[in-house]
Every structure is written in C-alpha cells, then in structure tokens.
C-alpha cells in the first residue's frame, strides 16, 4: 500500500477519533480561549494588547499544540496501537504524514478561533491588503508546527515522563516558527506601521522549516518509533 494511501487512512482515523471523542473541541479549544483571556487580564492595556496580539496568538497556539500532540500519541500508546502499526508493517512515513495532516486540520480550527478572539478581545484589526500574507503565514506555520509536533510526539511517545519531556524537547525547536509567524502576522496586520512586504521574508523561513521537518520526519519516523 502506498505511503499516501496510508497517510490518508491514518489522517481519517485520527479525525474520526476526534469526531467521536471531541477532546479538542470540548477541552483544547476552551483551554486556548482561556489562555487568550488570561493574557488580556495580565496585559490590561488595550494599546499593549493590540501591539502584542500576533505573538499572543502564536504563543497560545504553541501551548495548545503541546496538549493536542500529547493527546494524539496517548491514543496510540494506550492500548499498544503504535506498536501494532509497527508490527503490521505499515509504512512509518505514511503514518507520520497522516498524523501530521490530522494535526494540521485541528491546528487550523484552533488558529481560526484564536484569531477571532484576538479581534474580539484585543481589538486587533484585519487589514485587507495583508490578507494574502496572513493566510500564507497561517498555512506555512501550521504545516511546520504539524510536522514538528508529530515528529517530537513520536519521539516522546515511548519515553518515560513523556508529558514533561515533550514541552522540553519541542518548545526550543519551534522557536523559529514562533518568531517567523509572529513577525509575518505583525506585517499582515500592519502592527506598529509594518507593511506586508516586511512579512514575506519570514514566509521563506516558515516554508523552509516546514520542508525540512516534513522531509526529515517522513524519513526518520520509523526509526523513532522502532524499538
């Protein structure tokens, strides 16, 4: 069976699990919303909130990413399904891509919510001229985060203390995405006089990051989950 067929199969399975359990919808999305509200409490000045809103959106995304990735691999390890996938001879690159696709879909829903909350809570204004950059930023950053989340989730899945190990391993690695996505989002929203042209170089960084981790993860995932 081809790697893409396996990827589609695994992605559909993961999304079906979410549709049945609604853990992301009922727990992670409210958690992300709560983080945005807490930021608003901590930084009570409207001017400060408007200025830092892009960074807060991406910070809340990273915190929620950790929770989703923990959940995604807890499903696989709870009854030995990850081992069973390995025993079944399913191509690990396909499993990696499938899980990354499902994670990206869930992250996209999360980011839409967070952007909406930034508009409502922080009075962030969306600028028509920056819309293409904004969409491109969210697409490339989401793909990069999905690849990193899946790769490090697989790496931590079999480790002792994986709940605490995952943030420790993953947060430093996603720092370039946090920086690049925040700067590109600031440019798209015109924060502090930034223009969309300021943001496109950051898209290059995000795309390179996604490509590197996508290729690396597809090749290395089998070794990571192998005993």
């Amino acid at each position, binding site marked *: 069976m081809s790697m893409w067929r396996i990827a589609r199969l695994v992605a559909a399975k993961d999304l079906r699990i979410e549709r049945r*359990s609604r853990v992301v919808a009922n727990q992670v999305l409210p958690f992300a919303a709560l983080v945005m509200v807490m930021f608003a409490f901590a930084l009570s000045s409207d001017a400060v909130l408007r200025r830092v809103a892009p960074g807060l959106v991406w910070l809340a995304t990273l915190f929620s990413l950790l929770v989703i990735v923990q959940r995604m691999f807890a499903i696989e390890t709870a*009854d030995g*399904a990850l081992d069973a996938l390995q025993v079944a001879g399913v191509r690990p690159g396909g499993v990696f891509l499938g899980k990354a696709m499902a994670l990206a879909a869930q992250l996209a829903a999360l980011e839409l919510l967070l952007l909406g909350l930034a508009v409502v809570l922080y009075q962030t204004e969306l600028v028509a001229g920056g819309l293409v950059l904004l969409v491109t930023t969210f697409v490339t950053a989401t793909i990069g985060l999905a690849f990193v989340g899946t790769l490090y989730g697989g790496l931590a899945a079999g480790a002792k203390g994986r709940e605490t190990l995952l943030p420790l391993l993953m947060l430093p690695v996603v720092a370039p995405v946090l920086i690049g996505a925040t700067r590109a989002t600031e440019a798209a929203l015109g924060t502090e006089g930034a223009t969309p042209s300021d943001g496109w170089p950051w898209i290059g960084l995000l795309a390179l990051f996604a490509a590197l981790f996508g290729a690396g993860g597809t090749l290395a995932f089998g070794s990571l989950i192998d005993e």
Partner: protein
Amino acid sequence: MLAGCAPLAFPSGMKPDDHPAASAATAPATERAAAPMPTQATAPAGAPVVHLVEVVAVLGSFPALAGASLTVQRGEIVLLRGPNGAGKTSLLRLCAGLLAVERGEATVLGCDLAVDRQAVRNRVGLLGHANGLYADLTVGDNVRFWGATVGATAAEVQASLQRMGLADRLADVPVARLSAGQRRRTALACLVARRAELWLLDEPHAGLDAAGRDELDSTLRAAAAAGATVMVASHELERAGALASRVVEVVGGQVRERSA
C-alpha cells in the same frame, strides 16, 4: 511478491468462510463450543510456515534466543511453554520480524528474516498483552482501519466481524465500553481482516473469563482450520495444551519438542 520472500504454497483462494468450521465461529458462543474440532488433516501439505535452525537473537546485550530450532507447518496450533524469561515472547517477536537474527537460519512464510524482516510483518499478526485498539472508535471502525492497512474490502471486513461474532450490535459499540473478552475478540477480528497468515499470540487467555476463554479457543481452532497457523505462548498449560496440536518447550532461549 514481497522483497526477501520466496513463494509459499498457500491456498490463496481459500477463504475463512469456505471452511465448515467458519460457520461455527459466526454462531453464538454455545454453538461454537459445540462445533467439531477441525483436524490437522484439513491443512494441505506445503512449505513450513516457520522454519528456524539454530537461531541466535539478542535483546541489547542479553541473549534472547540461543540456538532455537523449530519447524511449524501450516494449520498447526503450537503451544510455547516455559518459565518466565525463557524466550517465548522473543520467539514470537522474531517470527513477527521485530527481532533481528544474529546467527542461524530463519524463514517465516517464505521470507528470509536475515535478509528482510520488514517483508513478513504485514503477513503476520502479533497479539501481546495489549490489543492495539482505539478505544474511542467502534469495533467496526477498528476492524475497518486495520483491514484497510492491507487493502481489505468492505466484504472482507464484514466477514471478519461475522467470524468473531461481532457483526451485530457490537459492531457499533465503542471499544471503550467493551469487556476484556470482547476487546480480545475485536483484536482477533483485526488479525483476520488483516489476512494474517501466522497468528502469534502472547498469553491470549490473560484477563478473560471462562466464557471468553472458550470463545477464544473456538476462534483459534476455526482460524487454524481455515488455513491460519497459530503459535501461542502461555502459562495456562491445561487450557492451551488442550487447544494445541503440538507443544514445544522454550528453555534458556532454546526450543525442545514435547508431545501434546
């Protein structure tokens, strides 16, 4: 043909439901228990499913198998017995292509494990203490997913569910709500849907009540009658011994033949 595998004389046209014992597996548990025991004679002669000669395998620096030799023919149910740490689980994992062959000759389903361990993996089914199921998905979802990994059709998935007595109301029940025995049956249905030719079961009776054990035994007998080969590692010698067509003892990483 998979890389590293030689053709194996296996009746590909033979389907589980072709065998008279199959109807017993789809029948209620009481009827299944009363079904006639398939005999070894129903399995046609051919190349051995498992052929190990003086196999040495290590786990880290620990010798898991120390010169194990074993031949298993198609349709056999072989009980592996022996004390903890004797190498029973390692033997099963080696046959599943999960443990590297350091020395010796190891051929499983026509695949030379020294050449390519990956090739055999999608033709065997290994069931350990965990069932490999997704608790949030229904029984049907699980069997469909595992069947789809080998391209099983909807009809094959349905046949697998029927074979394990899961095709009725249980098919739509989330695995999280099942009893231990029903989960085990679901896991076995996944092996059938994956068209596993060699079933490697590690303590399959653990956690099952008496009725669940009876169901498991009749399922394994029917599977063997339909052409699958079964290797069972168990400490429950009386029950597993009655099930097995052959008993082998694993001691210190070596295999000794015993009469059933």
